[in-house]
């Protein structure tokens, strides 16, 4: 089957399995809810203050939710070493990676879609700058976390304490992207300064690391 055919089939399988046993997604939705509520308790800013710090809080909350989802990326493949079946088949490794990354992207976006309204309610948020720009920022930012997250989840399969390894590998490398997301969102919320530079940075980050992942994923998959 063609490259995108395999990607589509793998993604469809993952979404179907996720939909069938909804326990994973329910647990993560509840986890995200908890994160938002706890953040809201620990800070109770006025409307003006909240606009200034909300960018950072929202993205750190999204990061927590993403990490929990990313840790599950290869769980199903690991259970019966299905990766061996994939590696023996003629299917290209990148098709698997792209499917997993897109699957994670959908997954994390669903979590974010739930958390955002809660943040708006708890922090009485109202953006002063061009609100529509928040969409590309969220998409680019989430993809930046997810593409590297899926890749490093594959690397951390081969290490001892897998759950702790993924954030250890992902966070340092994601600092520029995190800086970009937080500052872009703050610029929009407070209306001061433009998010253009940060959006450009996020685009560059996504392009660089998506291509790096596609180039090096096969090497990681083969390194058993």
């Amino acid at each position, binding site marked *: 089957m063609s490259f995108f055919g395999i990607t589509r089939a793998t993604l469809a399988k993952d979404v179907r399995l996720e939909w069938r046993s909804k326990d994973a997604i329910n647990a993560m939705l509840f986890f995200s809810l908890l994160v938002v509520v706890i953040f809201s308790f620990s800070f109770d800013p006025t409307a003006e203050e909240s606009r200034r710090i909300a960018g950072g809080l929202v993205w750190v909350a999204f990061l927590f939710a993403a990490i929990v989802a990313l840790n599950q990326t290869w769980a199903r493949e690991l259970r019966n070493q299905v990766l061996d079946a994939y590696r023996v088949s003629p299917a290209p490794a990148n098709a698997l990676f792209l499917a997993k990354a897109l699957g994670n992207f959908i997954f994390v976006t669903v979590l974010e879609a739930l958390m955002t309204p809660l943040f708006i309610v708890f922090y009485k948020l109202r953006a002063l700058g061009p609100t529509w720009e928040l969409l590309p920022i969220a998409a680019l930012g989430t993809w930046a976390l997810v593409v590297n997250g899926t890749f490093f989840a594959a690397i951390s399969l081969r290490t001892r304490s897998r759950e702790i390894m993924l954030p250890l*590998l992902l966070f340092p490398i994601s600092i520029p992207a995190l*800086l970009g997301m937080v500052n872009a969102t703050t610029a929009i919320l407070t209306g001061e300064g433009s998010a253009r530079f940060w959006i450009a940075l996020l685009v560059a980050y996504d392009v660089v690391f998506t291509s790096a992942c596609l180039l090096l994923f096969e090497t990681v998959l083969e390194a058993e």
Partner: protein
Amino acid sequence: MKRGFSILAIVTALLLSFALYEALIAAPTERTMGDVQRIFYYHVPSAWTAFLLFLINFVASVVFLIRRDTKADILALVTAEVGVVFCTVVLVTGPIWARPVWGIWWTWDLRLTLTLVLWLIYVSYLVLRRFSTSSQTPVLASVLAIFGALDVPLVYFSIWFFRTQHPSPVIGGGGSLDPRMAHVLLINWAAFLCLAWLVCWTRFRLEVLEREVEEAQALESLLEGSR
């Protein structure tokens, strides 16, 4: 080989002490900050040396991925480890300098923040090497090293723009430098480069020995097994 090592050791010792003398005594005292500015002669060359070591690590990782040559892998490990040591020096001397001059321990100064991020990246690189249970740890490590290196320009630009929005004091003043100061700076850098070379050489030999012993023990346990 042995002779080369001891020559380098002597040269390094001489250079370091001469550089120390230059930095503390011979160099002119800076008008505004006074003598505390002399931390500059240790802080900046350490950062440059660390960045150079990480560059070598990147090149060695790429060479390893292409040729799977263990020497390149050992060089990558060694330069990462020694690079982290020099980064630690920068991260310690930076705040010590910022405290008396601006009254704050930490400032999001471009060089300091870049060093901090690099420190985090290469410590996670060393943690991966220690935690990996795969027989192909070098492959995983070199992939991570390449990711780390790709990250550096992005880190640089994000901090640079971040600083224009949150101006903060610059450590070591970007402005023009008194030529004599620049001279002392270069001497210190040369001294640190020799020191880095010496330490890398030692660590390299140590790693080669460790791997040989490991292999010998593996063979021995096998022979006992089948005897």
